[in-house]
């Protein structure tokens, strides 16, 4: 069972996807092809990669500027839309970076219907620690 399959079990899950740091869509699952298609996921992955990078820059700057810690590294970025929300995480990549790995795993995200969305459950799956090979 992959993380994408686990994400698809979340309440209201409409799609789950993996993407590169540059936003290219990789593997994905779609529960409702009439509402979310591959083309939407592709642009969404690019949007989320950009927002995750900007949020990381802002968190780093904010911590330096204010002395308040606990914002960086960004664990998830969530965009709350009109009908659905998308939650993305780069935490697994961060774990690999900290372990000194050169090859980094993809980022992951899930699209959930707003009325049923359990953001904390999505965070828990996306933050699940996986063993870093050779660490």
């Amino acid at each position, binding site marked *: 069972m992959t993380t994408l399959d686990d994400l698809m079990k979340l309440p209201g899950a409409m799609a789950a996807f993996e993407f590169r740091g540059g936003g290219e869509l990789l593997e994905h699952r779609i529960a409702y092809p009439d509402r979310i298609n591959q083309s939407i996921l592709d642009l*969404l992955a690019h949007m989320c990669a*950009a927002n995750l990078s900007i949020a990381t820059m*802002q968190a780093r700057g904010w911590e330096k500027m*204010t002395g308040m810690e606990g*914002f960086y590294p960004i664990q998830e*970025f969530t965009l*709350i839309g*009109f009908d659905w929300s998308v939650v993305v995480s780069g935490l697994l990549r961060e774990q690999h970076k900290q372990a000194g790995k050169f090859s980094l795993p993809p980022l992951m995200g899930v699209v959930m219907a*707003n009325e049923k969305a359990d953001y904390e459950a999505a965070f828990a799956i996306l933050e699940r620690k996986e063993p870093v090979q050779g660490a």
Partner: protein
Amino acid sequence: MSIVTDLLAKPGVVAAGEYAYRGDRFSYRGALSEEHARKASIMCRATTMSVNMEASMLEALEPLSGLPPPRGWLVHGPDYSVCVIANVFCLIDNSKGSINDLVGFMRQALAHVPSDMI
């Protein structure tokens, strides 16, 4: 009571505020200095404008996608999170507050706010 006052009464909320979409004013309450609150409101406003632009691009590509108009966004850090719905922002201590409860409250309380960002 204002939404900012309501938010400050929620568990884990460290500070909360509102900003004008045109960027010329903000107000806040909570454990932030005036200057830090001003910076926070600028960053929150910039990200809100950015996600609205992105959503309109998605709408142009795929009409009726269900994303636009975006209601807000959320950044989850190891100890603190920032939640923004419409033009209202709040900082939350993750160990003391519930993101689900907070997003649910803000979405409901701000559901009437027009999405034209004026």
